């Protein structure tokens, strides 16, 4: 078989049963992978800027916490009733930690935390509070808005769908 025939066969294969079976397998694999394991995310909103820009794309890797523990500063997706609409947030405190904001600076267990991912910050003030067991404290990276307009706080760990890659 010459090279042009091989190229033609590669791009335009004959529609036989084997080919259709292959296409079906590929379709099913894509559906399973992109619905349950590696969920594509379209980021809308500015709460995670500058790390995640409005209009950009990313992926939620659902297996991330299957074999590893949740760590502070991980970026995670938080579900509402399902996985179609999720929140993108950064974990800043783990169960039992004490969280506080003083003039926009984050304090965990009374120690000031250096947050290189925060570029804009308003003078947020939040009295110390302890993160409940089975909960984590999540905040967005963009602290340039007033505290009342930013959605953050402690959430149950089972609300976390997975980690974010890319």
């Amino acid at each position, binding site marked *: 078989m010459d090279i042009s025939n091989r190229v033609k066969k590669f791009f335009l294969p004959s529609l036989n049963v084997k080919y259709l079976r292959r296409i079906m397998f590929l379709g099913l694999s894509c559906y399973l992978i992109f619905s349950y394991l590696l969920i594509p995310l379209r980021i809308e909103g500015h709460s995670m800027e500058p790390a995640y820009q409005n209009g950009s794309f990313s992926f939620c890797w659902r297996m991330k916490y299957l074999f590893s523990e949740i760590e502070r500063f991980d970026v995670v997706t938080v579900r*509402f009733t399902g996985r*179609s*609409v999720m929140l993108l947030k950064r974990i800043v405190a783990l169960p039992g930690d004490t969280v506080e904001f003083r003039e926009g600076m984050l304090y965990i267990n009374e120690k000031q935390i250096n947050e290189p991912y925060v570029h804009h910050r308003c003078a947020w003030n939040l009295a110390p509070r302890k993160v409940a067991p089975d909960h984590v404290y999540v905040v967005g990276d963009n602290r340039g808005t007033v505290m009342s307009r930013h959605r*953050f706080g402690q959430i149950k760990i089972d609300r976390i769908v997975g980690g974010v890659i890319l």
Partner: protein
Amino acid sequence: MSKILLFPLLILLTAAAVFLFLPNDEKIIRKNLTSLAEYSSTSPEETTITTLKKSTLAAKLCSQPCLIHIESFDIGREFDKKELKDHILMMKKMLPDTHFTFHDTGVSFPENDRAEIMSTLRLKGKIDTTRFTDAYELSIHAEKIKSDWFFSSFTVVEFMEQ
């Protein structure tokens, strides 16, 4: 194909068609939810008459009275249809370019004439020149009154606690 096989296949197809196209309580509730989102949404070209009509239609989907509970806004009381219509109208005027959609909706029936709905409400729109997007988890109750389903309560689930 032999006639022996054709007959059960036809029965199977009819049963599938009936299951797919015959309205049931869950389908009616989901349709009402879609209508509610559509009536609550506002486009910049919408005329005042249309806004008024849509607000009335949205209120008509709710029971009399209807409980609204939003802890973060300190709202937790029953509203009658007139009040609901006025509030929807006010909201539509405040958000003249906003699209509402419901996602990941689950419907369960604890009793024959009562339904519990969990859904995610997504808002996407523009205020002046600034685009915004927001989402809320809602716990909704619906009641069957004279063969029609009406939403009897809306509660915003506050799962993130500061």
